[in-house]
């Protein structure tokens, strides 16, 4: 029976791993090294701006060992969802890092860059052709949402990666890609039955997360055969158990039995988990149902406004116990003053008070009603310009600072503000605006691959 070995250094490129763990993994002769570099979990700004998620030195550190190992052992290295969100600038940013590493190590490399940004025109065309559907719980996609997007990416499946491998790429740097497809690609190219390959990928995409105790970001390895796979963490101090591996499909998924990929659905309903030694688990029964039609997930992010905040605390019980009317008065006074001094009225700007100690974490889901002894308040504004956002939040803060407290008589100062200056300009804020799938003509037509010889 044929077999293939997959090595993941961690679940998020740049988050680190032990060099000793990587070396243990390399000693087990992987056929491919793959690493996920992005997630929508990072929030909408990276998708919009194309800025990398981690500072550059962290990427250099993680990539140096992988590139060196891959090129010297002739093992392909696949990186997906480059630099945090898989944008074109993210791909170019990591490509630059890779070129630097290859040059420094005096190695040679056939590099494949696969871009996933989508033009608005192409998406509008697909929308007009009724090829776009909303994912629950989003609404149908409106043309104006496409036009207003800062950036749109398509999440590629394994096909562009398979093609790049087939064309002899040593290192593949992909834009937005299904995390699992980074690991399934080589197995698919070599004609393995898809179930075990995709399931192994599902576990490896998170690095050591499926270990019983994940002490820190670290490696995970899988040996994939035609009707099962075996998974274990290369770090000898970590181990997998049947439950830790079975429980992994719970993480960040709506359904642990069904996980949708562009080309189909991984079905784990019939899986059996066996402990083969103290640290390794064998998984059999993984199935993959081909999708008809093939769909690509679209992610989009749009500009919301410029963001400014001020952080303060309140400890006075007379205010804490009557916080709602107090803040309502501050809001009303702010709105009046902002209309006069800044020339804006709601909804041209958004003014928000986050109250930690009341419902700062859970918002309207919070069931607890008793106030704490103190509250932390984040005053924040989203406005068309940074200066306007600064002005509005400064106004709200200053009015709150000395707003009358009905329970007291005389001049009061109501906030414990820890910083001076207190206004923090946070720059441009974004939100996710597209959560849809599209039926492409082919699995690869939405993505552009460029080869480079280093």
């Amino acid at each position, binding site marked *: 029976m044929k077999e293939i070995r997959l090595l993941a250094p961690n679940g998020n490129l740049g988050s680190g791993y032990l060099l000793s763990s990587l070396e243990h993994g390399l000693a087990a002769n992987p056929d491919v090294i793959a690493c996920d570099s992005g997630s*929508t979990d990072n929030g909408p700004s990276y998708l919009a701006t194309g800025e990398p998620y981690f500072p550059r030195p962290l990427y250099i550190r993680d990539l140096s060992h992988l590139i060196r190992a891959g090129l010297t052992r002739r093992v392909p290295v696949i990186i997906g969802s480059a630099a945090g969100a898989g944008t074109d600038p993210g791909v170019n940013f990591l490509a630059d890092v890779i070129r630097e590493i290859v040059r420094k190590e005096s190695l040679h490399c056939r590099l494949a860059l696969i871009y996933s940004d989508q033009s608005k025109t192409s998406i509008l065309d697909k929308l007009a052709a009724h090829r776009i559907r909303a994912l*629950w*719980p989003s609404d149908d996609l409106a043309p104006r949402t496409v036009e207003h997007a800062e950036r749109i990416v398509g999440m590629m499946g394994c096909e562009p990666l398979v093609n790049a491998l087939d064309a002899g790429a040593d290192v593949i740097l992909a834009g937005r890609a299904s995390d699992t497809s980074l690991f399934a690609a080589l197995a698919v190219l070599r004609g393995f039955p898809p179930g075990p390959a995709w399931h192994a990928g599902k576990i490896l995409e998170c690095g050591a997360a499926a270990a019983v105790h994940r002490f820190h970001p670290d490696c995970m390895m899988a040996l994939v055969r035609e009707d099962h796979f075996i998974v274990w963490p290369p770090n000898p101090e970590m181990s997998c158990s049947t439950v830790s591996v079975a429980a992994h499909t719970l993480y*960040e998924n709506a359904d642990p039995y069904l996980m949708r990929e562009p080309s189909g659905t991984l079905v784990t309903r019939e899986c059996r988990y066996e402990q083969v030694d103290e640290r390794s688990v064998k998984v059999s029964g993984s199935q993959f149902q081909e999708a008809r039609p093939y769909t690509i997930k679209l992610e989009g992010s749009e500009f919301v406004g410029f963001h400014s905040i001020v952080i303060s605390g309140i400890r006075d019980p007379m205010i804490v116990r009557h916080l709602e009317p107090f803040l309502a008065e501050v809001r009303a006074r702010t709105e009046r003053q902002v209309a006069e001094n800044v020339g804006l009225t709601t909804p041209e700007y958004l003014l928000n008070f986050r109250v930690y100690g009341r419902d700062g974490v859970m918002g309207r889901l919070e069931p607890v009603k008793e106030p704490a002894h103190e509250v932390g308040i984040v005053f924040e504004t989203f406005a068309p310009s940074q200066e306007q956002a600064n002005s509005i939040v400064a106004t709200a803060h200053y009015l709150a600072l000395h707003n009358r407290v009905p329970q007291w008589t005389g001049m009061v100062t109501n906030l414990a503000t820890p910083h001076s200056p207190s206004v923090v300009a946070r720059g441009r804020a974004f*939100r996710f605006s597209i959560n849809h799938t599209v039926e492409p003509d082919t699995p690869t037509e939405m993505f552009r691959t460029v080869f480079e010889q280093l």
Partner: protein
Amino acid sequence: MAKLGDLARLIRSKNAGPFLLTFDIMFGDAETYRTVKDARVLTASLIAKTYGIPEEHVRLVEYDPGWAFKATIPRPIPSGDPLDTDIYGAQQHAPLVDLELSVVPNRP
């Protein structure tokens, strides 16, 4: 009566993408999981009431291989929206921790 947080080995919340919030209630052994499952008290209705949302918005899965229950709901506010409180959706499970259930834990 027992508190869910005392019965479970782990209760957590996380994003399942930016628009869904997923809760995992994971038990440390098959027996505790089975006791809770057979008692039929951890239901979509209970989750809906705890979070003040319609029952039809709750997707509940009983996951035997992982000794776990999973409940997924639409995020009230998408991740990263201006009014979002929790980018990762990681701290929304607290009301489940102190939930009282009519289950008698079978402990020696």
